[in-house]
């Protein structure tokens, strides 16, 4: 077990270094960062001096090693716009994004798992049909449009909820539901099909034959086993939520990492873009690591080798 964990940790670290390499290459591809930094009236000498100061006159391989060393030490350069180190700038916004993604996930799970279970248990009933329609529409609705429609209905027409900002639960409600809807649809579908599969297994029939109540069979025997594939989807969906938060935060003016990313991209603030891409990937990699390790707790058949 310990060996498995350390192996997975090492692998996650390698993936992150890979992400670093991708970001390094992308930022180098995007043109000369020195020219972005310098005022237009700068002379060629000024530009060369700046290039030397930033270490950009060294061979690419050397630059990459320096970049990796800095990245692993948490130094991701300075924001061109805010004149502050990029990493703290991102970390400052991270709690807001995690709060939003966490609330969205909570909403998705609370809606989707019960709905998926009921749809599977009562296959073909009206609630199953409702679940299918919910899944179809949830998967086809663009996050940001759902947000706009929410604002239109609940902020403009009914005046029940504020349309932007962060701080109160009223402000969290609409962005979280908006962001979580797609995941809710995905998780619901997964839960339903996993439940259907488990319910047709021999051990469920045995449990029923023993005379156990329907409730015990569904919750103690079936649900626990159906959760294994669902947990994988949860991990993947969290990555989707982090990505989706970019758009959701823009719609609701939510002061998180996603909004900072869009602003930084539009303002060509590459060190911040770099820090956010690596930071979000780190969060995602850690979550998938946790998901992988949770398997063993749910499914003793999983061997860590």
């Amino acid at each position: 077990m310990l060996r498995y964990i350390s192996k997975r940790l090492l692998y996650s670290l390698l993936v992150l270094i890979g992400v670093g390499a991708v970001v390094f290459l992308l930022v180098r591809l995007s043109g000369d960062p020195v020219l972005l930094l310098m005022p237009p009236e700068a002379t060629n000498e000024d530009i060369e001096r700046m290039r030397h100061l930033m270490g950009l006159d060294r061979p690419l391989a050397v630059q990459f090693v320096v970049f990796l060393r800095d990245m692993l030490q948490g130094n991701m350069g300075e924001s061109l716009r805010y004149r502050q180190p990029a990493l703290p700038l991102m970390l400052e916004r991270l709690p807001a994004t995690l709060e939003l993604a966490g609330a969205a996930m909570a909403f998705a799970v609370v809606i989707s798992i019960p709905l998926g279970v009921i749809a599977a248990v009562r296959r073909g009933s009206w609630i199953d049909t409702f679940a299918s329609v919910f899944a179809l529409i949830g998967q086809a609705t663009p996050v940001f449009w759902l947000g706009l429609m929410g604002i239109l209905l609940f902020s403009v027409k009914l005046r029940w909820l504020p349309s932007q900002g962060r701080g109160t639960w009223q402000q969290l409600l609409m962005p979280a539901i908006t962001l979580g809807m797609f995941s809710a649809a995905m998780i619901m579908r997964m839960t339903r099909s996993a439940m259907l599969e488990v319910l047709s297994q021999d051990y469920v029939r045995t449990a029923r034959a023993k005379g156990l109540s329907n409730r015990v069979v569904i919750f103690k025997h079936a649900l626990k086993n159906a959760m294994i594939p669902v947990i994988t989807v949860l991990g993947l969906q969290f990555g989707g939520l982090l990505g989706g938060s970019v758009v959701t935060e823009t719609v609701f003016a939510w002061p998180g990492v996603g909004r900072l990313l869009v602003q930084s991209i539009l303002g060509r603030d590459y060190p911040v873009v770099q820090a956010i891409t690596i930071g979000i990937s780190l969060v995602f990699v850690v979550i998938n690591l946790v998901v992988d390790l949770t398997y063993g707790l749910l499914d003793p058949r999983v061997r860590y080798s």
Partner: protein
Amino acid sequence: MKRLRNRILKRKFHLAAGILLLLIVLMALLAPVPVDVDPNAQDLPSRLLPPAWMAGGTREHVLGTDHLGRDMLARLIFGSRVSLAVGLLAALFSALLGVGLGLLAGYYGGWVDNVIMRLADIQLAIPGILLALVLVAVLGPSFRNLVIVLGITGWVTYARVARAQVLTLREMEFVQSGMAIGATVPRILIFYLLPNLWNSVIVVLTMQVASFIVQESALSFLGLGVPLTTPTWGGMLNDGQLFMASAWWLATFPGLAILITVLCINLVGDLLRDLLDPKLRNM
């Protein structure tokens, strides 16, 4: 053949979605035939006109006009061209990339497989829309770059599907005998393995067109899509956001257009999957 036809006809709901999708595609191809109005023609005196069925609406502008007096219906129809074209081309590009790499990974195994699949792991660690945003920022927003960017973000699914199938296919007799009679590697890849992948590829491709349409609209919404002179559904939503309080139709119709199109494509995708490759059910 008759059984296949019966199986399709039994699923009326999916069939209806397919027909609706065909109509949407036809409308995009035929534009500007049904509504011969320039989608960029501004008419400031008749700006923010509501749809025809509301008080103040006119029959000239069935779905109303936007803040510059441009006809909503014409813009929606022209917007569908960008959405459908970007979605389809990007999905094709990413299929080319992904199937190619998946074939190589599955056929060669060893370090080739390792490099390609680790690359896939690295890419999956970056949420797709994030990677797309950064790539668009690097390459600059344009129609061509959108296709490239979305194509790059989507290759992994194809690669995984193709690789998994090649791993079993390459042990089969017809491939082994092909190798034995000295068929070259490209020949084996293209004539022996690829034809067996079509079904899965078509299913993944259909689903991906839908997801790329949503992503394209998200990028346009953020101002990182095709240039603003071309009407797009995402760009229209971006405009509409500013007039939420006074003109609900600006932000409502483009989103409905995306929703209906994506819904139809997903339903057609479901149908294709059940007919061609039921194994992909959990992808």
